[in-house]
């Protein structure tokens, strides 16, 4: 039998349906792969017993012909999703040994459709980071290395564990979340496919909150088709999230292979940065050429407020985070440090429970919301956000179907290489992705090539609200042209 971990989700679905192998065999193959890859630190909790129980139960259902759309498929779950009875920490010390008594809506839909949980995946603490280095469980290794080098690189973040595990064939797909680029940037760094759907497409209920007006869940997978299959199960209306949208979820897989002939693809001139590596520039032109060859029409577009998206984000996101993270008080759950009075209890608990990046963002958020500064910072940033969204609306009003950009300004970098002296250096990773969150739009990152050192690079497609299908159709064109990329195993 071929190695079961190297199958795509779509191939595994067929193998399970044809009874070539069982979910238990598929699950065991992945559990062994996880064990052999502990050096990557992608999983912060392995749940082998639960995985085998789920697999056995779903095998019985498959035998009776009752398997759902993801029946028997082993997945990894970002540790930001509450999983009933399984420790959920957001990779923060402050949540300690928090064991949810409830299940997030997104994961419950995956189990409803027959998926199997292998364990919980590493991420930046509270999803605040672009390299997975802020996790209280330590950094994650990228399965990709520079040619001829044995330096361990970051997998990107905040969904670094998800991206690393999917790229290293430890799970067939993973849940992830994206507030400023946390699905798309790690996908680009690991040659995986990641989609952040339109704001409101997936329920946020049961996902540890970072910045509620920006957070969205989405999948990281090994192919565009696999991502489409996963998103279909993850998406959908949930009365428990007031921002979740009550519109039907299309069969995203049906969009794969659909013709893109006549589609208008915008190339935004503001994404052409000064000093952008020639490799990124080349990749971008190549991507445009592939879409053109498939019959799409390329048009230059302008998104004039692009450069203000990242600074506006670094007001809006910390402001919302400072409010959301007020709940970690040492009283109701998680860590508690001893203190003489209640204020000290809060202060000591939060000082020892939060890591440096989280403290920094909570403090900046507190400052921009404090009396006398609200108008100058927060209100102004929300106005700039309106302008950023209008840029996209103007562009789509001219008949543009999707926008093509690079996913990241560089390939993966080494652990400890960035952001040591100036936090802004790390923040610049999200320069191409953050606009999409600010405007609530869907965006997909698809592997498109490698740099001179052999590291993967990705392209991003940005779509109209709730038009993820167009992104899957276009993403498939890029995948067909660029091919798929698998790292050489060193772990």
């Amino acid at each position, binding site marked *: 039998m071929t190695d079961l971990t190297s199958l795509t989700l779509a191939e595994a679905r067929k193998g399970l349906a044809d009874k070539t192998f069982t979910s238990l065999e598929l699950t065991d193959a992945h559990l062994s792969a996880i064990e052999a890859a502990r050096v990557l630190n992608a999983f912060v909790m392995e749940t082998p017993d639960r995985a085998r129980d789920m697999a056995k139960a779903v095998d019985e259902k498959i035998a009776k012909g009752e398997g759902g759309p993801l029946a028997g498929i082993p997945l990894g779950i970002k540790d930001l999703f509450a999983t009933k009875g399984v420790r959920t920490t957001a990779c923060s010390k402050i949540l300690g040994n928090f*064991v949810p008594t409830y299940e997030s809506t997104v994961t419950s839909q995956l189990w409803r459709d027959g998926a199997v949980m292998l364990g919980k995946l590493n991420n930046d603490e509270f999803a605040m980071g672009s390299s997975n280095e802020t996790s209280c469980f330590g950094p994650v290794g990228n399965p990709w290395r520079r040619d001829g080098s044995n330096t361990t690189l970051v997998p990107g973040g905040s969904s670094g564990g998800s991206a690393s595990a999917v790229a290293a064939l430890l799970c067939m797909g993973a849940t992830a979340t994206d507030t400023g680029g946390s699905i798309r940037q790690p996908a680009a760094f690991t040659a995986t496919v990641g989609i952040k759907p339109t704001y409101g497409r997936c329920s946020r209920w049961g996902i540890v909150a970072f910045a509620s007006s920006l957070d969205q869940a989405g999948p990281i997978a090994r192919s565009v088709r696999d991502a489409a299959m996963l998103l279909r199960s993850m998406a959908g209306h949930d009365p428990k999230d007031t921002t979740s949208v009550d519109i039907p979820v299309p069969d995203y897989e049906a969009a794969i292979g659909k013709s893109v002939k006549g589609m208008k693809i915008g190339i935004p001139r503001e994404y052409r940065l000064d000093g952008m590596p020639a490799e990124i520039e080349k990749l971008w032109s190549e991507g445009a050429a592939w879409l053109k060859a498939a019959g799409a029409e390329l048009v230059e577009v302008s998104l004039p407020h692009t450069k203000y998206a990242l600074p506006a984000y670094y007001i809006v996101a910390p402001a919302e985070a400072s409010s959301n993270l007020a709940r970690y008080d040492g009283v109701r759950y998680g860590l508690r440090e001893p203190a003489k009075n209640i204020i000290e209890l809060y202060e000591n608990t939060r000082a020892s429970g939060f890591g440096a990046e989280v403290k920094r963002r909570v403090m*900046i958020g507190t400052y921009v919301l404090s009396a006398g500064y609200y108008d100058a910072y927060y209100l102004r940033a929300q106005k700039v956000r309106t302008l950023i969204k209008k840029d996209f609306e103007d562009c789509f009003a001219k008949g543009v179907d999707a926008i093509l950009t690079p996913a990241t300004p560089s390939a993966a970098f080494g652990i400890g290489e960035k952001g040591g002296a100036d936090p802004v250096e790390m923040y610049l990773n999200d320069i191409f992705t953050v606009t999409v969150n600010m405007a609530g739009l869907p965006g997909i990152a698809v592997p498109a090539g490698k740099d001179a050192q052999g590291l993967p690079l990705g392209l991003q497609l940005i779509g109209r609200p709730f038009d993820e299908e167009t992104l899957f159709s276009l993403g498939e064109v890029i995948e067909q042209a660029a091919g798929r990329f698998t790292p050489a195993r060193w772990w």
Partner: protein
Amino acid sequence: MSVDAVTVRRIAHLARIAVSEDEVPHLQGELNAMLAFVEQLSEVNVEGVEPMTSVTPMQMKKRQDVVDDGEIADDIVANAPATEGHFFLVPKVVE
């Protein structure tokens, strides 16, 4: 705009994060780096622009005014660091 050491200590207190004296200079530098970065927003003309209040144009949904959950006190206190019965324990608040 930039923050001084006094402001850093005030923000830390507002955020309920204990900060030791030797952490202040470092935090001050980092916060000022972030504030310098967002400074460029002041060059945007936002005259007459409405601040964004909702990412997707939608009517705010309202829940039915009915009890549809509850009787889960055991679940609520299950993860608390200190409890007595169904109560959270905290240091004395009222003298």
